[in-house]
């Protein structure tokens, strides 16, 4: 009885030790993963700061005005220039071309038929 209980206790101690070790290792792995994620977040945040700073630089009022002058002035004289309208009434009616009348086929008279033309249509 004593021996069995002693063996059980030793086994129990081993099992507990194993669980403890496994728990410790999994916590370490989780913390390592967390640390990597935090590093990635910090790097992404740095990148976002750089991009938003560059965005502010590219949206300087002076630059936007210059671009607007260049692009909008260029399109002013072309047919594809945007036209601003106030409502649907201002949209012009589409010009639908008239269906052309079909010209009747011209029948060749026998005097116009030459041997080279391959003969008259029948």
């Amino acid at each position: 009885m004593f021996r069995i209980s002693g063996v059980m206790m030793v086994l129990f101690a081993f099992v507990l030790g194993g669980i403890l070790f496994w728990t410790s290792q999994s916590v370490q792995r989780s913390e390592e993963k967390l640390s990597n994620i935090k590093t990635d977040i910090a790097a992404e945040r740095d990148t976002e700061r750089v991009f938003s700073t560059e965005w502010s630089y590219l949206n300087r009022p002076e630059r936007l005005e210059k671009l607007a002058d260049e692009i909008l002035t260029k399109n002013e004289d072309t047919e594809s220039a945007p036209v601003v309208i106030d409502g649907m009434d201002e949209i012009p009616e589409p010009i639908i071309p008239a269906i052309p009348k079909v010209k009747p086929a011209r029948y060749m008279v026998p005097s116009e038929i030459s041997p080279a033309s391959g003969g008259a249509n029948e």
Partner: protein
Amino acid sequence: MNKFSRRRFQISGQKGTAIDMARGRLVLVSAFFVFCCIIVVARAADVSIIQGALSPVGEGKVYSSKNDKQAKFSRADIVDRNGVLLARSLKTASLYVDPALVKEPKKLAKDLVKVFPDLSYGDVLQKVQSKKRFVWIKRNITPEDHSKILYLGNPSLDFKEEERRIYPQGSLTAHMVGVSGVDGQGLSGIEKSFDNLLSDSDEPLKLSLDVRMQHILKREISATMRNFNAKGAAGIVMDVENGEVLASVSLPDFDPHFYGEAKGNQTFNRVSLGVYELGSAFKLFSTAAFLEYEKTSMGERFDVREPIKYGRFKIRDYHPEKRILTLPEVFIHSSNIGSAMMGQRLGGEKLQDFYKDLGLMSAPSFEIGEVGKPIIPNPWRDINTLTTSFGHGIAVSPLQLTKAAASIVNGGILVNPTLILDSNPGVKREKKDSIRVVSEKTSHRMKQLLRLAVSQGTGGNADVEGYLVGGKTGTAEKPSAGGYNRNKLISSFLGFFPMNQPKYAVFIMVDEPKGNKKSYGYATGGWVGAPTVGKVISSMVSLLGLPAADGDTDIEHSLVRYVKTKQQIQKERSYANH
């Protein structure tokens, strides 16, 4: 019964005692191991379950690297009133060398000079041959240069992570935002005056500036400077109700990324630091004081036919009307003689007190350190009462002038200029905190006069149809040795809109403009400052989405009867001749 059961075998005597002793020892050792197990289990439960439940999520104490802590930059951002970025610190690499690890110093120096052409070979060679273990080569290098150095693959070179202050808007807000040094300390402007706050806080500092209005102001002032070949210029846009500065430009300006290369006149802030005799713009204050203290009517008349002689001084008008003028006519025709008469009637003491109430006699309180002290006559003589009435003999900054004028047109409540956006714009200041400088009646009359000065006076070029612009021109000769220089002017215009309920003040000052063909050779406030203010206002109103006012809301109607038309004047003169 089991033949091996304990009952069959009973060992007695010495052997029995030894077995008992051994059994006891085994029990003790087992108990010890069990005890250790219990401690281990308890500790595991404590560490993983109990402490894990109590500690905040994410705080790893076992694995923590230097990158693990929350990314905190040494300096907070500065933004404008709409959140547009004005200043930000970004991480950069700074290159250093450990001379002890350098094997081929000449080759290394050559390679470094190829990457950084602005460095001299001799300087770099000296650094790589130094006896120190840490020598800076170049700080805050670009990512491109960073990769070039890495490509060299020299183990004696290494990088230290630092921060560099970047100003995306460039020179647009350079004077007010200021600059910070290489080590992150503020050197001028908001960067300097809010150095501690910017260093400690993560929250961006929101200014009252609007980069869009800043751009409009700078664009128009730059064009005027070019057209009139001026030495410098300054402009300010202020909210008259709360003193918020929406735009402030001083030209010439500088690039904050190259602060060390900027010249003195570029870094000089003409808006707040420079003090100037602003001439006729000051008539706004002498007229307001006259109306406030003398309690007179608009029909008050002033005989400006002859210059005023005071000792060796002679006060004359720039464009003499040579007739008797009413108070509104004195204002709209900018008569120096009429204004001097007003000052004379008021008296030096009352005029000084009025200027003091408006904050014109001492340096204004402002959030940046670059604030100039006004130059006031000391001692104050009687002649100074006359001259300061029309803006000579007293020098103030454009910021001070705009603040004082805003305090008159906003209903008569003193405002203080500020660069910091009000965090609670909806909360109005209690009336007991307000300081009244003029009565509402005087404020209304001044608004009428300012509107009249634009619709019928010298400020006509500032008018923007539908927006009831009011204002006052200013033309002053600059002081020089022995008096004033007629060829060097300070031309300005102080405008407000919409005049029925003024919201914004726009002041523009041009230093030493020269007349051109378009201005018929004139370089006065009416030709230089007024059109510029008009252009700024016409761009501002579309930006702010302000609707045009109805013509019937013009407030000047009641004063028109005090202003004679050209026909009336000609008729009077011809009658007088006969």
